């Protein structure tokens, strides 16, 4: 290896920070060869170079989704498994749940037609198969037979139709309306026969199966006779059924003996889900062995767990991110060169490696996260102070300017705000922070009554989604209800409509590339990173599975 090693070192000496970081990850086995080649191109390394490095430094394992100790031991039957999570906000109602705490509960006893797995691939569950018509405006799903609800009744197509009508009802107050508006209307779901369901969409949609998968966490299938008050029964078709609900404290589940999937039946005898008021309590509880698996923790909150040898951290690449919007219709961001300058001043490497401890993907100023299959590969924007100053000069702002940045006291957003504040100082830009609580930041969530939508600059949190449809829509379309940047671009609107309708992956990728280039040029919103979803389990359990949405599955988990 010696001659090659010298060559590698020589090559590395001439590469940038970003590129060396990538090489380190590859050598540490954190990313597979395919991933390395893909990202190498992304950061600007030529193909011959990348191939050379891939061989010289190679680790020949496949793509790893989880860069941690794998849970290989076979779990034993029996015992009680305890799971800790943050307390659900509000009532536990499948129609209205809108937070992580709540959706985890729904996913214990409830099930979906299709599941989105940790790699964002669709897995048939209550549906066996599905196919679109020619233009993607009608999707037909074949249901699995013999699936029982916890009350003994057998699931059929009418249950599915009623479930989706309930979710798509504009008067139903459902949280899924943000996904279904313009896609599926009430009455659009038809039970063709006992085991076939037909979705007649408002418009052709190539990603529709994702929109009714576990990604749409409200879409657990409920009996047609369901009429509210889910907290009494927690009714569903899943491997767990309700044992006891203790409001504000937790829920206990026991195995559902007649679960349809023999390979999915619960291994332990009880599943105790415990609620914690905040992350600090949750992390402390996990360290104190009050439970065996932890649904989610952040990089900063979970630092203790990341270095704890008894904890296995599952790192799931996700599309969760923070949107830093800049009002395109107001000074100082009216000129797109100013916005580009801001984007060039951001030190993304410091954010990914420092703020997020490498537990994130780089963001390239568009909703197309690296984790999406339709994301096109383009050169990654990096910090370039000289270029930023040049752009500012061209836009007449060489002396810098002052601007107020609004956000709220949640997650790592205050840290991001303070880091941003320091990053732009060099160019003479002075950011004044106004960090409040979430109610003040969101206000009434309508234009004119909300700092989120009215501020000149702000940071907003966006959670994971399996496909970028929603992210391309409401925050950036000319008539989008979440359009905090007041971005109005006709070409963009058209491209998004085309993307949504495109049914095959190649077409999606082609259009995605156009959109990404447009957004890199206009930069109404800075997407600086997409952070991983972190989940944890103790080393004495095996078989815990989480996905980037946070739905933790402990049915196949047990003690070793």
């Amino acid at each position: 290896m010696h001659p090659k090693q010298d060559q590698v070192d020589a090559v590395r000496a001439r590469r940038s920070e970003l590129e060396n970081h990538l090489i380190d990850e590859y050598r540490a086995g954190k990313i597979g060869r395919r991933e390395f080649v893909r990202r190498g191109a992304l950061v600007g390394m030529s193909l011959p170079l990348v191939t050379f490095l891939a061989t010289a430094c190679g680790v020949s394992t496949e793509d790893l989704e989880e860069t941690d100790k794998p849970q290989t031991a076979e779990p034993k039957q029996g015992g009680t498994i305890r799971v800790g999570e943050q307390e659900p906000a509000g009532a536990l109602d499948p129609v209205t749940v809108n937070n992580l705490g709540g959706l985890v509960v729904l996913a214990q006893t409830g099930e979906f037609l299709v599941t989105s797995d940790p790699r964002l691939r669709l897995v048939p569950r209550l549906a066996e198969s599905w196919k679109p018509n020619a233009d993607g405006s009608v999707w037909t799903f074949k249901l699995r037979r013999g699936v029982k609800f916890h009350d003994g009744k057998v699931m059929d197509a009418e249950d599915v139709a009623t479930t989706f009508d309930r979710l798509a009802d504009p008067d139903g107050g459902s949280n899924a309306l943000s996904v279904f508006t313009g896609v599926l209307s009430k009455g659009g779901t038809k039970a063709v026969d006992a085991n076939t369901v037909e979705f007649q969409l408002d418009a052709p949609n190539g990603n529709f199966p994702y929109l009714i998968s576990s990604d749409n966490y409200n879409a657990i299938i409920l009996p047609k006779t369901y009429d509210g008050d889910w907290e009494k029964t927690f009714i569903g078709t899943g491997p767990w059924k309700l044992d006891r609900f203790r409001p504000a404290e937790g829920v206990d589940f026991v195995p559902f003996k007649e679960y349809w999937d023999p390979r999915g039946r619960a291994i332990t005898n009880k599943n105790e889900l415990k609620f914690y008021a905040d992350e600090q309590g949750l992390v402390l509880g996990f360290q104190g062995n009050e439970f065996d698996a932890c649904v989610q923790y952040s990089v900063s909150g979970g630092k203790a767990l990341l270095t704890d040898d008894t904890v296995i951290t599952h790192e799931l690449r996700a599309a969760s991110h923070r949107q830093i919007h800049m009002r395109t219709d107001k000074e100082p961001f009216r000129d797109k060169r100013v916005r580009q300058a801001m984007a060039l001043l951001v030190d993304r490497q410091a954010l990914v490696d420092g703020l997020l401890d490498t537990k994130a993907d780089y963001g390239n100023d568009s909703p197309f996260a690296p984790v999406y299959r339709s994301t096109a590969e383009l050169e990654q924007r990096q910090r370039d102070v000289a270029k930023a100053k040049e752009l500012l000069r061209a836009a007449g702002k060489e002396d810098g300017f002052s601007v107020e940045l609004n956000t709220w006291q949640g997650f790592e957003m205050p840290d991001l705000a303070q880091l941003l504040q320091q990053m732009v100082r060099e160019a003479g830009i002075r950011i004044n922070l106004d960090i409040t609580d979430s109610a003040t930041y969101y206000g009434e969530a309508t234009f004119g009554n909300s700092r989120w939508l009215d501020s000149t600059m702000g940071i907003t949190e966006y959670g994971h989604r399996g496909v970028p449809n929603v992210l391309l829509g409401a925050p950036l379309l000319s008539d989008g209800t979440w359009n905090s940047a007041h971005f109005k671009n006709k070409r963009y609107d058209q491209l998004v409509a085309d993307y949504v309708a495109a049914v095959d992956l190649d077409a999606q990728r082609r259009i995605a590339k156009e959109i990404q280039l447009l957004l890199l040029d206009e930069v109404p919103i800075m997407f600086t990173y997409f952070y991983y979803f972190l989940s944890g389990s103790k080393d004495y359990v095996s078989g815990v599975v989480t996905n980037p949405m946070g739905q933790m599955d402990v049915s196949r988990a047990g003690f070793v």
Partner: protein
Amino acid sequence: MSTSASGTDVAAPTPPAEAAPVEADERAARRERLRLLTRSGTFIGGVVILAIFVICAIFGETLAPDDPFATNPLDDLAAPSGEHLFGTDRVGRDVLSRVIVGAQDILIVAPAATLLGTVLGTVLGLLTGYFRGPVDDILSRFIDAFLALPTVIIALLVITALGPSNLTVIIVVGLIFSPIIARTVRAAVLQEREMEYVAAAQLRNERTPYILFAEILPNVMGPVTVEFTVRLGYAIFTVATLSFLGFGIQPPAPDWGLQVFEHYGLISGGYWWPVVFPALAIAILVIGVNMIADGIAKAFER
């Protein structure tokens, strides 16, 4: 005369009533108090502590080894070392610099809030103590209602309504303290109003504001001063707690309570320094102020 136990508050006990001293006696009393103060170890100790923090507040920028606002995320949460005596915080800023400069905000906000509370409380106390009857009953009911409200809820409501800022914090803490101070002042005024000089002023047909502020007030300054110094310690504590709950002074200010708020979740990971040093600063300052208050209270007791 009301001897309601709930009239007593948690601070120093109300000093016994004094007959209104004559001018010369007053000066002698003051000299005596000063003498006692300068000989009290506790008082001197407290002054020294306070002086150190005041120096930090005034000369903070020069004393601090680094820019308290300069972030360095790649060196975040570094343990205390030669380069960073108190380590670095979660975005890589030097903790020592932030503790030093952090004295500024608290030494402005806490005294201002205490002053506001004392002024408001004294006025309320004078009014309720002097007038008795319906004025006393109604105002006292309002004061009672305020005392029954949990402090945090008051703070939450006011700060959310006005928006978090140093000024809002001053207003909130001042508001929270005024009822308690009003209570003490009221008790003192109740004793004073029976005195002869008050009756004399009334016979002279002096106007009420004059009686309140020119006659009675100077004679209750003792308890008022004691209250002020005791409440000052409380104010520091309360402002820190508000920052800790996220309602107080805003980032990126190097406020001590805010620093504890930002970092207390990290303690379980072994990152004790961003929490312990600001917390110690709070504790030491409060102790110092309390030592001063203790000295003053003892001096006034004679």
